[in-house]
């Protein structure tokens, strides 16, 4: 069963690799047009195309790329002439750290809020939180980012708040200063507060909305009433019966929320000028740097496929009823 799941995931990854190749290489436009000097001759352009491997036939290019991907080689970046794996490898840790911190906060905030709403269903707490979570859920990440930047830089300055309260809005380190030890860590954390807060609040709003409705569904089931009837306290009912039935849902949620988080990080990295994967991908798209675009897309897809696979493997362990299905 496990082998079959892994095989399906690998086939899916191959399909994504193929789709990426098709989308990027069949797109109109010539990447060499952006790479050569304006006064270059047609012969120069042709030579460059030959060097980049763009003048071979599509099936040959596809086969070459597939072979290279299998060896873990994503080719050379057109614009920086460095291996794509290096370009992505430099950017990935930043995005992964941003994503991990945001995902942790997302669940730490979203799940309790959703459960609280489900427990207080229909009452004032629930209504206020519903309005709040739905509004945050509806807000575009990039707009929230801009609004918070204005608030915590200019706003904090006009309100006369102490300088430590003004959060840096751009980059990941303070430029022009070499900090060491503890000061460097604090500096990075201060730069990370706004991006993480935005990703986490948008994520937590979605998780809370989902948790609320699924916990509310569980609360209506017969065994919850039975548990109450046989004299368990509210806390015991939640710990023993409700949580056991909600955990599998949360695992599915983890896998479901990953693509959204990755997408959100593209906007956040763009607004806050973080040198992560999202920015690398945006720059590569604008420069028609095909190998980097394809590499980043495959990386994102691999992350999503891996998360789905992990959820599929974890589900039967948490919910024995699914073993048979």
């Amino acid at each position, binding site marked *: 069963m496990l082998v079959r799941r892994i095989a399906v995931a690998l086939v899916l990854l191959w399909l994504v690799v193929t789709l990426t190749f098709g989308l990027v290489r069949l797109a109109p436009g010539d990447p060499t047009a952006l790479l050569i000097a304006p006064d270059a001759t047609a012969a120069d352009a042709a030579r460059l195309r030959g060097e980049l491997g763009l003048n071979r036939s599509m099936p040959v290019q596809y086969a070459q790329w597939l072979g290279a991907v299998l060896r873990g080689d994503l080719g050379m970046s057109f614009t920086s002439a460095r291996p794509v794996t290096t370009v992505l490898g430099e950017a990935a840790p930043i995005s992964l750290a941003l994503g991990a911190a945001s995902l942790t906060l997302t669940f730490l905030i979203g799940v309790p809020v959703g459960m609280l709403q489900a427990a207080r269903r229909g009452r004032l707490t629930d209504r206020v939180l519903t309005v709040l979570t739905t509004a945050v859920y509806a807000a575009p990440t990039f707009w929230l980012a801009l609004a918070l930047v204005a608030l915590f830089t200019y706003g904090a300055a006009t309100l006369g708040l102490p300088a430590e309260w003004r959060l840096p809005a751009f980059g990941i380190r303070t430029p022009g200063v070499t900090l060491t030890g503890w000061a460097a860590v604090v500096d990075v954390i201060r730069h990370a507060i706004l991006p993480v807060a935005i990703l986490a609040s948008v994520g937590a709003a979605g998780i809370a909305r989902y948790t609320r409705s699924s916990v509310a569904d569980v609360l209506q089931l017969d065994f919850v009433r039975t548990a109450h009837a046989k004299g368990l306290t509210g806390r015991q009912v939640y710990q023993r019966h409700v949580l056991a039935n909600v955990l599998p849902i949360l695992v599915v949620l983890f896998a479901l929320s990953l693509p959204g988080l990755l*997408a959100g990080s593209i*906007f956040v990295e763009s607004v806050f000028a973080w040198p992560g994967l999202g920015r690398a991908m945006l720059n590569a798209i604008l420069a028609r740097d095909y190998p980097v675009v394809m590499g980043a897309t495959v990386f994102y897809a691999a992350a999503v496929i891996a998360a789905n696979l992990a959820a599929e493997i974890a589900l039967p362990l948490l919910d024995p009823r699914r073993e048979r299905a």
Partner: protein
Amino acid sequence: MRRLWFALRRDRALAWPLALLALVALACVVVPFFSRGDPLAIGDVLSLRLLPPFSRDAEGSLHLLGTDRFGRDLLVRMMLAGRISLAVGIVGSVVAAAVGTLLGAVAAWRGGWLDRAIMGFGDTLLSVPRLVLLLVCAALWQPGLLTVVIVLIATGWMGVARMIRAEILGVSAQPYVQAAQALGMRRWRVLWRHALPNALGPAIVATTLGVGNAILLESGLSFLGMGIQPPRPSWGNMIAGGRDLIVTAPWVAVAPGLALIATVLAATLIGDAARDRLAGERGAQRRDLADRV
């Protein structure tokens, strides 16, 4: 019509967001007619640019939401942008849902290799985050209105297709479907008349929730400069235009953002209301909703 009105008066959770969405749509249609001149044209930049909200320019015309850096009235541009955003969001998600319904139904009913091909293709598209897919398509192909709509449709059908397929597979075991087949009804007619209408519920919920999503994605693409291209306004590219003015003239970015939030909020609440109505007594309520829509 009257029955619809009474149903809505009883149904506050659906009525409020519908009213909000209708208000936004009405404003988007009506407001630009009251403006003088061409809202895309750039006039006397020096005297008109970055007027704060509620101010009058030298000619005495009132700018309720102020002006942008080229001296264009923000309210009028916002409403023009709203036309585009709403149209792109609604067309994008509804057509995507229709395509998804068709493909899901065919996959379930036909089965075999076609089923595997459609669902495999769908799963492949679902493995790439939708924004990444949108960025790659919209930027490498020609950015613009038509590209955004096509790409939204091409990347939005998979969820609905999976739902419809699962529902139809469930429904096809129902006695009424088997009875219709036993009575000699043609196979595709059974799908059209019996299986599909009873499988539509989740697709309707997904479509309404998808409208908000499509509007957000369009604005996101436009914000990054890969969606609707200026001078044609869209909420996304208007926010992008106010990006470096966020401290000196915050209204330029704040106003379109609020319009965006209000619209997406309304669409999401309508989707929630639809879902709540479908979650309870499935069969009856699903018919009820299918009749009401």
